């Protein structure tokens, strides 16, 4: 997230305060003194983690402090789910299986650990999927279930939190 603020004492702290208020986590603050904009305003880049549904609230709170939000960078995938797949994973086009998730744009396969016993015996794979948030993860799982049905793979999902 790139912010623009007055080059005055207390401004940076004022801009950062709302992040913790909405439950965000600051990973890095990059203070670009040489990149002064017009009117003596100062550019600051902040790398942060925040639940997706709190982002709009954060932007509003930061603006209330008289700080401009210039740009919001790529959303990171914060929601992680691990599933196990059993079947002929390789021979049913693993590339395609992964691609069906990756090309959603809101979820990615970020890790995979596959065990392949003898030929003709089913393989087992642990797959880590990251998605923007819970809803998008549910959509991803729906895609995965469809793929599994097509390819006769067994998907073992985690027991989600209820309520």
């Amino acid at each position, binding site marked *: 997230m790139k912010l623009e603020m007055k080059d005055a004492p207390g401004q940076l702290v004022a801009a950062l305060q709302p992040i913790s208020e909405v439950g965000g986590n600051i990973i890095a603050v990059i203070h670009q003194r040489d990149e002064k904009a017009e009117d003596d305003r100062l550019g600051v880049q902040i790398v942060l983690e925040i639940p997706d549904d709190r982002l709009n609230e954060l932007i509003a709170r930061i603006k209330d402090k008289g700080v401009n939000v210039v740009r919001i960078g790529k959303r990171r995938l914060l929601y992680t789910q691990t599933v196990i797949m059993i079947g002929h994973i390789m021979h049913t086009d693993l590339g395609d299986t992964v691609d069906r998730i990756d090309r959603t744009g809101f979820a990615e396969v970020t890790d995979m650990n596959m065990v392949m016993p003898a030929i003709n015996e*089913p*393989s087992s794979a642990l797959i880590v999927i990251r998605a923007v948030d819970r809803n998008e993860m549910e959509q991803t799982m729906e895609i995965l279930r469809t793929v599994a049905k097509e390819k006769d793979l067994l998907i073992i999902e985690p*027991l989600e939190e209820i309520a």
Partner: protein
Amino acid sequence: MKIAILGMGAVGRGLLEMADKKDLGLVVTGIADSKSALMDKDGIHIDEVLEAKRVHGFCGDKSLSAVDIVSHADYEVLVEVTPTNATTGEPALTFIRSALERGKHVVTSNKGPIARKYSLLQSLAEKNGVSIRFEATVCGAIPVMHTLTQGLAGNRVLAVFGVLNGTSNYILTRMEAEGLTYEQALMEAREMGYAEADPTYDVKGIDAAIKLVILSNTIWGLDTVLEDVEITGIDCLTTDALRLADDQNCTIRLIAQSIPSRGVLRVSPRILPKTHPLVVEGTLNAVTIETDMAGEITMIGKGAGSVETASAIIGDLMFIRDHYAGRH
């Protein structure tokens, strides 16, 4: 209180032994097995019948049958513990209906009739001023029905989920602990007497699904049937899958889950952290009830066994005795 018992398998015998051994005030006036029956309005000598069954393989008079007991014996509660028929619920369904129509209470461990015709049986019982109770159909000795209907009365139940089949839980536990293959663990379960010769019902998740139907219909007054449940069994699981889960400090359990608000009614193997309360060992059962006031309640206990099942049946009998005291 006078009771008649249909069925002298492990459950029926366990119940008779406990009725004989413990001072529960139960007088058995009728008994039937698949080949014979006997009745005595003054009370049957239980030890003699158990001995006869052990020696001859049948309990009484071969010219009498379960139908005679249901229609003619002098009892207040019919205890129906014949084997489950998941497709039609028969012949138990007919026995239960006849008893209710005679104005007799019914206690059963038989999943078939309850999973198929719960609402019909319930309304028949109400019409005749009696009750039908079936604690023993789900989670063996765990008093899940009592907890739901009495202990958690007034709560709105949001979800129910659990390990409802001891055989598949035993197999998964052994695959996890010893690295056995599915086939090896199943063979071991058979040797231990935990799995039947035809383990289809257990390992394909059907038994768990029937119990889930019973829970859902009882809790939410639904009319779901076995065919509504999305079922995946454990028979395709690999040892590798359990090892991969283990690397993440997780394991795999066969979980039955019903969340009506989200349209979830399914039985499937799931990944759970090893510290999760539903991760129980061996043949144990575990069930979590999520409610609006009480939050989450999890109960763990023995899901099968003759005396354990007798415990659930006796709990129902004692409830009927206390609840209907003085009405007869």
